[in-house]
Each structure stands twice: as C-alpha cells, then as structure tokens.
C-alpha cells in the first residue's frame, strides 16, 4: 500500500520533471525555429516546479534524505543515538504538520479571494491544496519513521 503510493509519487515526480524540461526546450526551440515562444512558459515553469517540490517531499522524507548533521554519531552510545533519532523524527513530523496547517490557511485564503495565475488563470488555491496534502503525508511518514529511527 505505502510502497505502491510512493512509487506512484515517484512516477508523478518524474512526469513533472520531464514536463519542466519540455517547457523550457519547447520555449527556446519554438522561439528560434518557429519564432513563437510558448505562451505562459514562465508561469508553467513556476507551477510545475511547485508541484514537483510537493510531489517529491514525501519521497525525500521516506528515503530519509533530508540533510542532517551526524556529528555526535561517533561519540554517543547506540541507545542515545536511537533516542535522538526518535526525537528528530517527532520534531520533523511536527514541523511538517505545522506546514500543512498553515498551507491550509493559505489555500482557504486563495480560494476566498479567487487568486489565479496571471497568464493561464490557474487557481492558486489548488496548488496550496496540493501542498497541504504533501506536507500532511510527509508528516505521517516522518512520524512512522520514529518507530524505526
């Protein structure tokens, strides 16, 4: 279940990244060969990037690739290292949950004011909503990681 979900996210991230490359290449090549830059390339890049970050955040968290300083690892007893690991996982989960809550408020705000992107008219609330889901899932993953620090 979790594994299937993460591999779906991996596929989605790859798709978003490929789209990001494609947008730039189409824009540049279109401009020189067809004298027609891709309209809205600027905004598409912004939005694809935001979606890529949010799609990948649970992956990074699951792979435990957030940069940490393991300075004390050589000095401490295994039990202490374990205790620190649990503490760090809980703090990480709390931070991500906090992000999710605050992004939820941003999403509500964006929906209320009808904020949309300037060129393509895409609803900004939807992007914030994706962020809420991403941070919430990542928080859950970090929390689950506390059992196995």
């Amino acid at each position, binding site marked *: 279940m979790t594994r299937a979900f993460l591999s779906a996210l991996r596929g989605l991230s790859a798709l978003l990244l490929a789209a990001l490359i494609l947008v730039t290449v189409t824009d540049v090549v279109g401009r020189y060969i067809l004298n027609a830059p891709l309209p809205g390339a600027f905004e598409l890049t912004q939005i694809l990037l935001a979606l890529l970050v949010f799609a990948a955040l649970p992956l990074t968290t699951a792979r435990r690739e957030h940069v940490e300083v393991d300075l004390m690892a050589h000095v401490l007893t295994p039990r202490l290292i374990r205790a620190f690991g649990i503490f760090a996982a809980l703090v990480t989960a709390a931070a991500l949950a906090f992000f999710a809550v605050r992004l939820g408020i941003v999403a509500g705000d964006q929906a209320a*004011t009808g904020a949309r992107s300037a*060129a393509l*008219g895409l609803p900004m609330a939807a992007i914030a909503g994706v962020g809420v889901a991403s941070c919430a899932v990542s928080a859950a993953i970090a929390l689950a990681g506390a059992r196995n620090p």
Partner: protein
Amino acid sequence: EELVLSSWLPPRHPIVVNAIEPWADEVEKVTDGRVTVRVLRKPLGSPAAHFDMARDGVADITYGLHSFTEDDRFKGAELGQFSFLGDDAAANSGAFWSVYRDKLGAEQEHAGTKLLGLFMHGPGLLHNNKMEITQVSDLQGMKIRVPGGYAADLMAGLGATPLFMSSPEVYEKLSRGVIDGVAFTYEALTAFRLTDDIKYSMTVPGGIYNTTWFLVMNQGKWDGISAEDQAAIEAISGEAFAARVGKAWNDADAAAEAEIEKAGILLYPAPAPVEEAIRMQASKLEAAWADTLDDDRDGLAALATFREMTGAAAE
C-alpha cells in the same frame, strides 16, 4: 512604539529613498518620537505577499501593487490602471486616493488593514525595438511584455501578443529577441537598463496604462496607537503621501526621460489612428470592468470623476 516596515523595492529605488523613508522619518517627528518606523533592509516575503503580510501582522506596514496577484480583492483599484488617466503622478495619486475611497470602497477592499496611502506611478509608455508604430496593424503579432491585467487585455485587443515575466528578466528577453517591446514607465525603462535595446517609445496622452499601489498598516497595530498620534500620522499620509510619492515618481520620470532622449530613442506621441484604436479598445475594457463591480458602485462615473480631477478629461 516601533513599527516595522517591510520594503521589497531595491533600497536605492527612488520611491524608497524619496517617499517611503522620508515618510517613515516624519512619522517619528510628528508623534514626537512616540511612534517610530524601522524600514527593513530585506523584505519578509515576496512582493506579492506584502498586503497579506500587513493584514496578518508579519510586518506592521507594507506597500505593494494591487495587480501583483490576479484575484477579486482589489476590483475597484483597476480604476487607476486604465489608459488616458493623466501624465502627472502626483495628480493621479491624489485623484486615486480620493475617488477609490469615495466611490469604489477602497477601505472595504483593504479590510484587515489601515489604509495609509494609495498611489500611482507616472504614465506608462509602449516601447519597442522593431519599428515606429504608425498604424494599428504594426502591432499585429508584436510580442510585448505587460505587467498583467488591463495592459495585457489592451495589447491582446490591439492584436499584439502579451507576455508575462518579472521585470528584471525584461532586459535579457529583449536583448535575446524573445520579446519585441515592453509596456513600462520612463523610469522603469532606465532602471532596468533598456536604453540600448529600445529604439521607439510611444506615448499616449495620460498614459497607455498605469499601476496602482497601496501603503497599509496592520489594523491591530493601528488601533493600539493613541488617537492623537493616529491623527498626526493621518495628516502626513493619505493625500499628503500621494503628493509626496507622486513627486518622487515625477522626478524619477523626468530624469529618465532626459536619459532616454540622450540615448537617441525616438520618443513620439501615438499617431491619431493608433490613439483612436486604443481609445476604442480602452472604453470596451472600461465598460467590461464596470460591469464586474457591485451594483452600488458606478465604475464609469468614478473614471469620469478621476479624469476631471487630473485634467485628463479635457484632452
């Protein structure tokens, strides 16, 4: 009481140096030092976030453009974004402060904040490096960077292709031929180093577009200031601030215009048929905008009042 002002323009921008900072200093003077304003060297968020930042108390005082984000909040502010509004930033800003508040509910639209100022910059021009525009068809397919909103709709209506990008990017995109032109003020043309890339700058009386700005303060912070100090701050804000910031824009535009002439850019008024086409397109968009406003707000009447106040109606 120390208030913190988050400023996103470059520290040496004429508006920061000649309007925001002097105003901040004056707040301290008129309140006998009971209220001071600290202007941060680095903003606490993106330019687009600055209204929310004041509302949410992230900073106490912020300024910004109404058109930074496309949403339904500052519908009335579009009053100050149309063509043919006036060539004097001080007069424009004064009229904007007055008409937007009296007729289009500025205070309501800035709910959650204390509205300290509303202002506009100098008239917008249409710059390009392709040709002197003598007829509307010259604009066909021309790729123009626009600030968004009205200017985009106007350009599209005239047959040009509006493109969006951040201002600092204009220089690169113009020199690489990604865009042919840009809707900018005199000041922005020089501030973003475009004098070598632009060859033709077309004016229309009262500007081809404009942008509108706010200066706001967190409501809670405002309520915490004594009535006496509130009155003192109000006296140097609002209309007085509009005059101050308008003069700052005018001075910056005048300096830029001299530089533009020195650079050998052809600065010319739009020929009659082009101006006529812009007027037709503009009135269509003005009417469409007026339709989106609440029934008790008469946008077209507000525009007429605005133009009378700035003297643009006579032109």
